[in-house]
């Protein structure tokens, strides 16, 4: 018990050290004018800018807009990709029918969809959410498919000899067996949705954290750029933590 607490203390200490090293190296590079680091804002400048910006109504509306866009896109991707992935992983015919198309679309990066998205959707909101959706969709889909394919054949056989019909096999073997992999896909999808979001907002956005970074660059408010980056990092990390927590609740057999 004591050893555990000791270990935990070390872990927390190392986490702080990790962040401290990042900040320290950054400051050293800026103050020593290494290469072009003189152009990069220093920590005090960023803290100053951050204080002003974080308490402004702009920040709240930007952060809320970005978060809602990501959640909408990620949620829609999950709702479509998980059932689709389960069907592809489980059913050979369905797999043969849909995989070639999906394999063709998969290598196209979400950012390449930006012009097409802007053309297709009547408003900025639609195109930005669509691009995030594309980013989140494939990791969720592919991990769901893999999750089903990784289920041991003996589990299907055991279920069938224990009287399970198609419905029970789907509910008790396919869905639950694939769950750990689905959660990995959801976490990856969330990360890629944020990447796609920032790119889409820079190009198409009227507000949002990505747009705010770009606007700060245009207006030469360099410390604000860093503030925006940190905000994205923190919100993204928070969401990943939520998915991990939710994932542990859904797969209690894995945490022991």
């Amino acid at each position, binding site marked *: 018990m004591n050893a555990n607490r000791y270990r935990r203390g070390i872990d927390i200490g190392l986490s702080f050290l990790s962040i401290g090293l990042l900040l320290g190296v950054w400051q050293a590079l800026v103050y020593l004018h290494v290469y072009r680091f003189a152009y990069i804002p220093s920590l005090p400048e960023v803290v100053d800018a951050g204080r002003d910006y974080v308490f402004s109504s702009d920040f709240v509306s930007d952060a809320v807009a970005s978060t809602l866009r990501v959640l909408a896109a990620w949620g829609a991707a999950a709702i479509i990709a998980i059932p689709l992935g389960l069907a592809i992983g489980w059913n050979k015919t369905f797999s043969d029918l849909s995989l070639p198309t999906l394999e063709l679309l998969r290598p196209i990066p979400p950012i390449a969809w930006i012009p097409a998205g802007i053309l297709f959707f009547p408003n900025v909101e639609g195109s930005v959410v669509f691009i995030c959706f594309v980013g989140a969709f494939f990791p969720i889909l592919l991990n769901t498919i893999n999750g089903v394919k990784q289920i*041991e054949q*003996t*589990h299907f*056989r*055991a*279920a*069938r*000899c*224990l*009287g*399970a*019909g198609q419905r*029970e096999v789907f509910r*008790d*073997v396919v869905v*639950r*067996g694939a*769950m750990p992999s689905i959660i990995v896909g959801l976490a990856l999808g969330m990360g890629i949705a944020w990447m796609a979001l920032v790119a889409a907002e820079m190009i198409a956005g009227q507000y949002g954290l990505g747009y705010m970074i770009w606007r700060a660059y245009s207006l030469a408010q360099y410390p604000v750029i860093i503030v925006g980056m940190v905000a994205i990092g923190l919100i993204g990390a928070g969401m990943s933590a939520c998915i991990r927590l939710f994932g542990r609740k859904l*797969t*209690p*057999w894995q945490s*022991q």
Partner: protein
Amino acid sequence: MSVTGTSDVVLDRVSKSYATVPVLDQCTFDVPAGSFTALVGPSGCGKSTIINLIAGYDWPDAGRLTVSGRPVSGPGWDRLVVFQETALFPWMTTIDNVIFGLQNRGFVRRDAEGQARELLAKFGLAGFERKYPSQLSGGMQRRAELARAMINSPEVMLFDEAFRGLDTMTRGLMQEYLLGVFEGSSITTVFVTTEIEEAIYLADRVVVLSGRPAIMKEIVTVDLPRPRKLEMLSSPQFGAIHERILASLIAEAEKDFSENVVLTEMLSASRGL
């Protein structure tokens, strides 16, 4: 768990090939109702295929395979399999695994759980109902798996090298355990193994299979008294049966020298006990 087992298993000239490779060639033998029959043969000789056919996961290409006189037409809870590697669902607790079959048959959860608790206690797993399989030891997993099958009162139990991978000690305990459960029951049991001692110790009859494609080579009756005791392993009677099965397998292996590797494996395995 009192089962009125009257199910016999009959293979009549059963043949099966996978991708043009013949695995079973006109294999004929029967498993009398209520008997404990072991299948031994070189590894890869098609023993698992026989289990899969009886379980209904696969169909014979030719010949007739009947259980209680009816041809097998797919899996069912009257014939349950305990697999080589654990087939417990890792995502379900022990008790949920055990009641899975009953729930599929429409039992109320509370009744099913009551039965499962009773059976798990009998199988030495009281207190482990809410644990996941990964939290159980290898021996406990096998017992939980046995409970998951037995709760359905199957007529035929199929063991596909079910104790492979267990350490010698646990394996010995599981054999004792199995004897405790099956001696005096009337469940028809087919037990596939590569270990001759295990086969003789547990079974009423040992079916010796040839190398691939498998044909039935010999049926050796084990006339050791029941209940079986560990001391019997060193009795002259046991030795004679062992020698006879081994001779039968050696004759088989000598037909094809390249398969001697397999035989060597079996010999070294049989010295282990």
